[in-house]
């Protein structure tokens, strides 16, 4: 599903060069639930960004469904992100000026989906995460766990093949975290491929495979 070959990511400024990822080779298979762990600054989020086509590797190849996408143009990358990948972030990244329903609809806007079916898909996604009764609420009216559930609904509304979750439970207490984890597991059971960055060993144990990074290098 996602194959990374010899991935290297270097951040350069005028005075300093930082090697964020060094010779990463990974193969995420369809239906897998993979967690990535490592200390802060080891390159976990960078790796997720490279997988999610949000960041370009300095070296190496990213393949999605067997196709090398590294040289794709902005428009093609945007289309792939929209149709194949769902993102979940630690800080939820909800737009406070939009209702829950409107937030969940956003990925479909970039598919030029018409209004009525767009709303129906968003309602379905919210129902799946147990928030059908909060559709007209604004993010500020929700708890942290509810916000993350909205973010999950937004990630799955377009029915993507892969879900990339960057510390989805990082801002939540353990009960809320478990709740989110249950939802992710359910999604995986339903066929979604999930790659999750986490600091939490307990959460990582619930996934199929663990990848450990240290100073940008894959150690496990």
């Amino acid at each position: 599903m996602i194959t990374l070959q010899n991935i290297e990511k270097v951040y350069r400024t005028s005075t300093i060069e930082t090697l964020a990822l060094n010779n990463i080779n990974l193969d995420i298979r369809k239906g897998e639930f993979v967690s990535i762990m490592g200390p802060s600054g080891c390159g976990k989020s960078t790796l997720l960004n490279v997988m999610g086509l949000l960041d370009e590797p300095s070296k190496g190849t990213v393949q999605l469904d067997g196709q090398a996408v590294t040289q794709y143009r902005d428009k093609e990358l945007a289309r792939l992100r929209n149709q194949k990948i769902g993102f979940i972030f630690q800080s939820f990244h909800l737009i406070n000026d939009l209702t829950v329903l409107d937030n969940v609809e956003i990925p479909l806007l970039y598919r030029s989906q018409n209004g009525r079916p767009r709303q129906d898909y968003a309602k379905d996604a919210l129902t799946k995460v147990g928030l059908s009764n909060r559709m007209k609420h604004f993010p500020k009216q929700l708890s942290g766990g509810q916000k993350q559930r909205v973010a999950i609904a937004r990630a799955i509304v377009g029915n993507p093949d892969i879900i990339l979750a960057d510390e989805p439970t990082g801002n939540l207490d353990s009960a809320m975290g478990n709740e989110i984890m249950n939802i992710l597991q359910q999604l995986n059971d339903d066929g979604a491929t999930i790659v999750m960055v986490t600091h939490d060993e307990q959460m990582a144990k619930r996934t199929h495979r663990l990848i450990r990074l240290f100073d940008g290098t894959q150690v496990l």
Partner: protein
Amino acid sequence: MISHLFKLIWNKKKAHALLIVEIWASFMVLFGLATLIVVNVGNYRKPLGFTYENVWAVGLRSNRDTIEVANKLQRVVDRLKAYPEVASVSRMSSNFPFSANQMNNGIEYKKRNVLAETYGTDEDFAKTLDIPVPIGSWYRNRDSVGKYTPIVINQKAKEGLFEDENPLGKIVSDKFRVVGVVNTFKAKGEFMADKPAYFELVKASQPWNDTVLIKVKPGTDAVFEAKIVKEIASMLTGWSVEVDYLTNSRKNQHNLVLVPVIIALIVSGFLLINVALGLFGVLNLSIAKRRGEIGLRRALGATGSGISTQFIGEIWVLATFALLIGLLFAAQFPLLNVFDLQSGIYVTAIIIAVLIIYAIVTLCALFPSRQAATIQPATALHEE
């Protein structure tokens, strides 16, 4: 996407209230200015109705002289006609073309009343100013028989009094008889509205029409002007003589119209520049504050150009809200017939003002939105 942008702006309406008021105020100023310009351009495009090149207005003031004033005026006219440099001479009232003077009278025909500009002129007036008379003819002294004074009216007066009726020979206000119709006569210059007007025959015996228009032959210069002034002064002791070139008087009349318009343009220009700078600043700030959202949208499938379009779209939506409020006000002008202007003038002014507002907001949004398009999603998401 449009409904999404409307939702986004509507949900932030309180935060955007001042911007909306700013755009609304700019629209109202532009609407006023555009109306002024549309009116003047509309007037300018209508023919003047006469020629003024090589025509001089000689103003004769008798001051304290009350003896045989009419005779003396006629003697001057006859003397001026005798100069080989002079092509034509005409006596008229003091409201000669491009002068600051104005006279008007109400005239009536079959209970239809029209307030018309009034000019007292002699039989050579049309010849002196090359005024075409498409219907009937310019009056002659011999037309002044019986109790009716011959008049020539313009097309506007004809429409107001007679509509589709043939005006020739008709009696107006029980004292005038129409002998001819001219098209337009805009005595205050090209920017004057084409108003109803009539010309009334000046009799040689009337002492009060003391302006003499002379059409000189091309190439006649100030030497001749000095010569006639000297000669008239010797003929009319104690009178004052003043010569105005109609070309110069026309410039003065134009300045009376153009200077206020130019001042309004400058003031509005400054206002719009301020509004534009304000908008530009607000948009820049907004983009800086919304980097996380930009990153998110890129992650969810927006292209760089899509982000740019979104920010331009947002400012258009904002402008649309302001313009809708502005239109509520502007629409009252044609509906209530304010200033007695045609609806078309207001509609044109509204369209111009709307287009300028959209152009300004687009210009203001272009640079910030392009900046937004270059934001790297991974960096923006990480900052949040």
